């Protein structure tokens, strides 16, 4: 739920108690007075809302990783966002935005999902490691190019255009995978691991899948 919530406290206090001419309220039917009070109470309940912007102190954290990132596809996304409102024939709001941004799809292997070596005692090693997968789909904010923005009758919110980018991430990842990103990432990861093991004295490196 997005939106500022504001506490409004309505105070009702007779302001004119000391005034002699207004010391007596005008005569009204009791039922009407009760009805008015009831309606006022309903109105107060409808207007009252809480303001509790709880900006908790942000923490930073660190964690250990064992991730090989071995391939990347970069997409250029031209994004259009438009929102127009009208009352009868009058345009009350016209918001339009056109910008471009790069999306990076990176793939590789998370060794924490299972990486194991089994030497065969004869200079060879069986390597068990997980398959490559898409590790991250992320926008590159430095690549943003804003073509134009029109904000008549209202400004464009940060969550509006970021939401429009979130919608395409799955499509971008699927396209990258369809174009062979995962096989490229897995091949590069195997090359890297095989090179490391060969440098470390292993004569034959065999990749045997995910589980020993």
């Amino acid at each position, binding site marked *: 739920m997005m939106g500022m919530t504001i506490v409004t406290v309505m105070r009702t206090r007779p302001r004119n108690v000391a005034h002699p001419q207004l010391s007596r309220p005008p005569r009204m039917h009791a039922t009407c007075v009760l009805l008015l009070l009831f309606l006022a109470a309903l109105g107060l309940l409808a207007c009252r809302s809480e303001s509790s912007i709880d900006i908790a102190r942000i923490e*930073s954290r660190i964690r250990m990783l064992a991730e090989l*990132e071995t391939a990347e596809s970069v997409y250029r996304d031209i994004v259009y966002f438009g929102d127009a409102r009208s009352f009868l024939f009058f345009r009350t709001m016209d918001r339009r935005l056109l910008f471009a941004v790069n999306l990076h799809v990176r793939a590789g292997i998370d060794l924490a999902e299972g990486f194991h070596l089994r030497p065969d005692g004869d200079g060879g090693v069986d390597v068990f490691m997980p398959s490559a997968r898409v590790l991250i789909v992320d926008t590159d904010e430095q690549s943003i190019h804003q073509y134009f923005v029109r904000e008549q009758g209202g400004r464009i919110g940060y*969550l509006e255009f970021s939401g429009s980018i979130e919608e395409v991430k799955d499509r971008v990842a699927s396209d990258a995978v369809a174009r062979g990103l995962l096989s490229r990432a897995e091949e590069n990861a195997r090359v890297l691991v095989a090179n490391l093991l060969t440098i470390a004295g292993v004569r034959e490196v065999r990749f045997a899948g995910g589980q020993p």
Partner: protein
Amino acid sequence: MKLSAAAVLALLSTAVAAVVLGLLILRIPTELLPQALSVLHREQRSGHELLLTEVHDLYRFHTVEYIYRSVFPYDYMAPHLSLASILRSIRAGSGSIADMLNEEEQRYLDAYNISLQAGLRTDTAAAEFVVVTVVVRAGFDLADTVFARPHEATPEELSSVFSVEEVHNAATGARLRIARMTTPPAVITDLRVEDVNPETYPYPDVSLSPDGWRSIAQFVRERARSETIGDGILRAAEQNGHRLLETLLLQLGYDRVELRTGNPGLSHENAGFRD
């Protein structure tokens, strides 16, 4: 001549009926009629045009991840400072602004200026803010090293990266095989501003253009880089990376592993690592 309300209403109704009939006679699409006749109308549209521009091979080994989160601009505007006090310092001093202000004041001024450019209201009445999350990863970039392209390395380069020493243990009579490996220094391998998902972002929306967001993201990114490096992320990355490599080499049958940091780059490459 004054017209009564009823007469005005009648005229309007006649005009609308005439328009509708006209549209029908001219065979203009009548599905537009509800839209034209509706009192309130809203039209939203969004579109994307995606184009694959680049494909890269990467050889990054991430060993540590550090989540840096900040509230822009208030995390960079110390409460004991104010714009008035900073401007006073500038007026009283001489030389460049960087010389007149300390780091805290400079950070305050930068955050204030970026907020102004981006359209974020920082006065107490509005108090707009954005929570920015930066994911900082560190480890080893192996792209220009012998680990990525050993076939391009000279024998001397290969032997400087890895060597094995056999030591005779006089007490036990066993022969110990000690593996020595050189790794590149740990570097920041990835620094990205996490994209906000409106469905999970719990804070109020703010009026911000993509240009404004770019400025804010760049500012926070640079602060995240310097602060995490200062906090020792590179040391942690190196330690964890060495721990992982030690485990791997012990699995190969070596009795002891010694890892050191050096330059296992290829001699014909400019093997400069990112900071």
